[in-house]
């Protein structure tokens, strides 16, 4: 019965004192929040810490959520800002986030695998690997667009950018992803794509 409640109804119940129902909201959104955090942190432990921190922040600020937008959009905005703060704390400022060299080490590591290793992996693994090599913003935009089923406006709201900027960034992100896949898969790319 509780599972059928909408986000909005759950929030009303939580604000009315049924705080245990927050677990349902967490379960509903944890995979996406975790994946989004992973796009920024590039490691599971940090991503889990960011995701947890973001749910705690959302809980504390739940009374201020005006419900003018979707709860998920609001939550993803918190995830984005929490992840950025986390990265800054790790001395990776915004400039270095956009610096592709930051991820060169990771890229070199994965590119060391030979074609036989890749044959054992399915297309999802390749895709996740390629996304993992993208810059955080690019990876987040692709995730929000394809898995979050967000409109350009909603993604813009989440990432504090204009929808047109998101459109251009999405295009560039897909271009870069295609290049990463081509680099990773070499000849196999034709079979996958």
């Amino acid at each position, binding site marked *: 019965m509780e599972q059928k409640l909408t986000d909005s109804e759950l929030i009303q119940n939580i604000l009315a004192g049924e705080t245990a129902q927050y677990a349902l909201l967490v379960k509903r959104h944890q*995979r996406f929040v975790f994946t989004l955090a992973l796009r920024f942190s590039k490691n599971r432990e940090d991503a889990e810490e960011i995701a947890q921190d973001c*749910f*705690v922040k959302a809980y504390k600020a739940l*009374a*201020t959520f005006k419900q003018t937008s979707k709860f998920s959009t609001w939550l993803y905005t918190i995830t984005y800002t929490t992840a950025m703060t986390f990265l800054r704390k790790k001395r990776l400022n915004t400039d270095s986030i956009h610096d592709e060299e930051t991820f060169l080490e990771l890229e070199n590591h994965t590119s060391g695998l030979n074609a036989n290793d890749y044959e054992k992996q399915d297309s*999802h693994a390749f*895709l996740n690997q390629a996304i993992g090599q993208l810059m955080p913003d690019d990876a987040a935009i692709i995730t929000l667009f394809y898995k979050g089923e967000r409109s350009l406006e909603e993604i813009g709201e989440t990432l504090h950018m204009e929808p047109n900027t998101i459109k251009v960034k999405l*295009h560039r992100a897909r271009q870069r992803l295609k290049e990463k896949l081509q680099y990773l898969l070499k000849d196999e790319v034709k079979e996958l*794509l």
Partner: protein
Amino acid sequence: MNTIEQQLWEYIDGTLDEATKKIVEEKIASDPEIKEQYEGLLKLNSVLETLELDEPSMSFTRNVMESIALEPAPVTLKTKVNTQIIYAIGGFFVLSLVAILTYVCLQAKISLTSFNLAKKMEFNLYQYFTPNTLYVFLFADLVIGLIFLDQFLRRKVHK
């Protein structure tokens, strides 16, 4: 940035207007290279649609709930401000003012018999118009003006 590839992506996303959509469709139909490029992007798009979300650890929800257990429960701002308390405070002040006014009226001995307007008006008004008075007056005006401006801007932001 309006390359053919971007147009193809926008065509796939369905964000093109009708006129541009027709132009792109014509390009795909007439140019084999563009058609091949379109099919490649279409495949990449279908792969991206199968993207899977990562799963956090099994104890994730429990960890979050344990963390928030230490936090005060969130409550709506409406319930935070109890209106009854506000009404009680307001009522107290209104009653106090009424009581004071009643007391003053009962105690005062109002008489108009010795009231002489001409006599009362015998004072030099100009002695009060000093530069200091003027500064105080202007300063008060400035403060009132700023208060009104602040209220006006706040209303605009809330809209």
